[in-house]
């Protein structure tokens, strides 16, 4: 035995493919109720170690599974996600289920309605297992900002799963759900998917209704799926995408058959590689993994072309001004009046607001509210928020310019593999830099998919980010499928 005690454990297990599970349920070889029960057993066994689920919605899940089994027994046609166990990030509301957004200020809140994306999944037959841990109000890159404790990475429990949708990524990686929903404001789907070795989708801004999403930064927030393979992620996006009268910002553009789009060959596609994403700060092992992924795309018949996104280095400062300004406005609604936590010791309205917010919010949320309030305050608005909005246009136009030459752009999803718990918690700026490759697409509103693309020598997953122009998710899925195919 070595003198060094092994403290890390791995809980990685790949879920079965959605089409296979659905076929088995349809044929009656497995029951949706048994499948749900087996997931709850695995959750009971592993969740205490990983802290992926904050709450379970067993009653609702089993009732849904029973209805699917009844349909299957009658031989009725089954909906596209019939019996598929799915987990939901805790920033999305589910009627009657605790929805905390990872915050103490919403402890005990049971929303009176379902988010549209949640309702659409269930209408498509999904069995909703429970609510997944995340950074408080989706603010963070490691899941260490959750008021309910960090999630551990199933690949290596001494490492973070990424954030803010850390629970959503870890649930798929550890087979505690077949697929999950997360949200992405500056990288919160893509970066954790990369850290946990699963597929994550950033849909175009406006593609998925945000009704029932607890808002962080409305010009950036998006809801998207996580899955163990690209085709399943494409199927889930097809279910949740589309116009919703309850969200005036949702797009009326028709929803293509994303799974079918992902089946198309990539031969002849032009793939852009921006030098700015391979500069200083990129881990050499991540670089090597991404370069071999690019070589695989070339071998599959893609034309690889250099593209330039020269202002990329300004994306993080731009993002943290825009996102915090919007957050300071969105989080004003948490005031102890209508839902959530109210401080018991306040005898005036003003003191009730301040005490409730001070006791209810964690340090990162307060930091961002203060930064955003400062950037919007009299005398500083033009210098900070105004300037950031101008740079946002420059960054978006650089993408549009690049997409005139190429069909997709590929980059590393994150500059490093998953880092250790506690490694960056003392330095907010170092944590913000974990989003360096994801925030620009967020600011531009374009879509993307992150797909596993090799590992480091010690077995930590590396993700490749495939970006495509607005509403061209199908192209991103196609390219991601080709990268995925080259892994096996």
């Amino acid at each position, binding site marked *: 035995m070595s003198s060094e005690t092994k403290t890390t454990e791995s809980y990685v297990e790949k879920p079965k493919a959605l089409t296979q599970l659905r076929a088995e349920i349809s044929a009656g070889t497995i029951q949706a109720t048994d499948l749900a029960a087996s997931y709850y057993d695995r959750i009971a066994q592993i969740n205490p170690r990983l802290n992926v689920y904050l709450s379970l919605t067993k009653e609702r899940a089993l009732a849904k599974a029973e209805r699917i089994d009844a349909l299957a027994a009658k031989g009725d046609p089954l909906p596209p996600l019939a019996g598929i166990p799915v987990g939901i990030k805790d920033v999305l509301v589910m009627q009657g289920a605790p929805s905390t957004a990872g915050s103490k200020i919403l402890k005990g*809140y049971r929303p*009176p*309605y379902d988010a549209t994306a949640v309702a659409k999944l269930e209408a498509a037959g999904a069995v909703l297992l429970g609510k997944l841990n995340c950074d408080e109000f989706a603010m963070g890159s490691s899941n260490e900002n959750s008021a309910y404790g960090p999630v551990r990475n199933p690949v290596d429990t001494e490492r973070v799963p990424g954030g803010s949708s850390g629970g959503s990524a870890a649930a798929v990686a550890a087979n505690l759900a077949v697929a999950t929903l997360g949200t992405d404001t500056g990288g919160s789907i893509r970066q954790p998917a990369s850290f946990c070795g699963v597929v994550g989708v950033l849909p*175009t*801004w*406006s593609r998925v209704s945000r009704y029932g999403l607890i808002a962080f930064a*409305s*010009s950036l927030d998006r809801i998207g799926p996580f899955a163990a393979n690209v085709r399943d992620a494409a199927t889930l996006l097809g279910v949740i995408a589309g*116009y*919703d*009268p309850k969200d*005036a910002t*949702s797009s*009326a*553009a028709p929803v293509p058959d994303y799974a079918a789009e992902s089946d198309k060959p990539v031969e002849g596609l032009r793939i852009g590689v921006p030098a700015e994403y391979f500069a200083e700060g990129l881990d050499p092992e991540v670089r090597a993994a991404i370069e071999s992924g690019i070589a695989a795309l070339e071998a599959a018949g893609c034309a690889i072309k250099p593209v330039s996104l020269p202002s990329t280095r*300004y994306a*993080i*400062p*731009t993002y*943290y*001004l825009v996102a915090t300004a919007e957050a*300071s406005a969105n989080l*004003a609604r948490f*005031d102890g*009046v*209508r*839902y959530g936590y*109210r401080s018991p010791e306040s*005898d005036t*309205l*003003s*003191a009730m607001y*301040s005490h409730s*917010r*001070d006791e209810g919010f964690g*340090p990162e949320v*307060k*930091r961002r*509210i*203060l*930064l955003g*309030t*400062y950037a919007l*305050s009299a005398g*500083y608005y033009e*210098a*900070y928020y105004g*300037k950031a909005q*101008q*740079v*946002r*246009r*420059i960054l*978006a136009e650089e993408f549009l310019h690049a997409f005139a030459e190429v069909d997709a752009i590929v980059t590393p999803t994150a500059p490093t593999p998953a880092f250790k718990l506690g490694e960056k918690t003392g330095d*907010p*700026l170092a944590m913000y830099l974990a989003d360096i490759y994801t925030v620009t697409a967020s600011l*531009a*509103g374009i879509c993307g998919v992150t797909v596993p693309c090799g590992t480091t020598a010690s077995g930590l997953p590396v993700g490749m980010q495939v970006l495509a122009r*607005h*509403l061209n998710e199908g192209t991103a899925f196609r390219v991601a499928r080709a990268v995925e195919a080259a892994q096996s």
Partner: protein
Amino acid sequence: MTAKVTVEDVERVAELAHLELTPNETGSMLHDLNAILDYVAELNELDTAGIAPLAQVTELMDVSGGGLRRDAVVPSLDRAKVLAEAPETNGVFFKVPKVIER
């Protein structure tokens, strides 16, 4: 854009945001805000004269949004269910501590 944030600034902004910070929190926020604002000052390197601000991205897309929904009366959330989530109500309205002395 290189203004140094002071303790008074932090206190003023906290007041605007209805956050009551402890002295410890004020100190750490002062440190963090200055570090972050120093970093975002990099944006000054870019000449943005004449560039229109981009507040959101729909204008960059070829398709329009869904537009405004039909102006029709539809049921809203049930009052009792909504009030059930509030810290304090009288069954009809939300209740809050006294606003005006009399």
